[in-house]
């Protein structure tokens, strides 16, 4: 238990550093802002209960907010992702269900499953995040385009990160 807590703390710290020092500097034509730290919410164990997932998601986003100076935005987006995660997991569960006491990872359930899983969660996260940032539906399609591009890049980076984790 303590072991796991430490493990997730390290994962979060690594993602935080990557996000701040690497991915925040990627500003490709104003449409691409990948937010890879959401991988942390993706990797939480299956057995995490609903309310705990929400609270962990909230603070994961909130700490990001503190470092990025955007109070509330990432918290709102990660809470939405944490809320959607159980429904997404249920919708795309493999034929024989999930193994107990594991975490959703590419190493266990394969590339296709992980690709859809991360795509859906990241889409929810980016949708909420970018619309919270704009806070109006006036430039709806411009924002939507931004969501799509950023989601694609985030998913690419997440899968890349999973390959590194797998190969370790």
């Amino acid at each position: 238990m303590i072991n796991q807590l430490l493990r997730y703390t390290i994962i979060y710290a690594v993602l935080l550093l990557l996000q701040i020092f690497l991915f925040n500097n990627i500003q490709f034509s104003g449409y691409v802002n990948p937010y890879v730290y959401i991988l942390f919410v993706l990797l939480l164990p299956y057995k995490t209960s609903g309310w705990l997932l929400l609270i962990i998601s909230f603070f994961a986003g909130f700490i990001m907010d503190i470092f990025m100076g955007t109070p509330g935005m990432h918290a709102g987006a990660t809470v939405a992702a944490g809320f959607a995660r159980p429904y997404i997991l249920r919708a795309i569960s493999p034929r024989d269900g999930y193994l107990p006491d594991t975490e959703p990872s590419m190493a266990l359930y394969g590339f296709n499953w992980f690709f859809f899983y991360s795509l859906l969660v990241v889409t929810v996260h980016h949708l909420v995040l970018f619309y919270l940032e704009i806070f109006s539906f006036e430039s709806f399609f411009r924002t939507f385009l931004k969501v799509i591009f950023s989601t694609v890049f985030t998913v690419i980076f997440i899968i890349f990160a999973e390959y590194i984790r797998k190969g370790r």
Partner: protein
Amino acid sequence: MRNLLLFIEKYNRIILFIILELVAVYLISNSYKYHNTQLIKGVRKLTLTWEGVISNVKNYLRIKKINDDLQAENTLLWNLIERYGLKTDSVIIQVNDTLHGVQFEILPAYVVNNSVNKVKNYFTIDRGKGDGVDVNMAVISIQGVAGITVASSDNYSIVMPVINTDFRLSSRIKSNDYFGSLNWDGRDYRYAVLHDIPQHVSINEGDTIVTTGYSAIFPPGIMVGTISDFKKSGSDFYTIRVRLATDFRKLTYVKVIKNRRQQEQLNLEKEFQ
């Protein structure tokens, strides 16, 4: 309570989700002016829409009251037309003389000074010679008879109201047309006394008293008041207490009535006196 707990247990995830999202939006709106204004704009739009709906409903519910008021006003106006002899239900004849057949001219006026607690009360109106007001013109309120002009300057006129012991008014009981003389006994500003009604006439409390028009000042048929009580004094006449229709304590808006044929009538009558 049990149901509430069950409800919270069943939907705890959704409730927590909504709470956390609200916290996030609160944080955002607290730190960004732009988001704050957007939020306020949205809320204001919502409340404005809602207020519009509410006021529509309220107006609809008040329709009956508004209708009653309009109807009362309508009746009043019709009565006024009737009273001043402009019969609109007869054939309308177009004449170039706008004063054709008009015996009485009406001029609205405001009471600018008033007294009710003396024996010889007077009040002042904001119309004078410049507006065509002269002495011996009738002044009525919306409820009924108010008084007679006794003096007028360029812009103001003094009116002797019914509640002045010098005031005499020829009035009649509307139900049986017997007429008598009305004056004030100097006591209660709400009551006057009607004399000279013979005792063989049957009268009732609540009977309406109206003007006769004999004096060529007041038009006939204007409300004076209602019989409040009466007693048979030693002579052959009743002493009738009349509850005046006009409330002199609340007098604010009056109409001055000019009888265009007053002089003609008086001149003719003078020859036989």
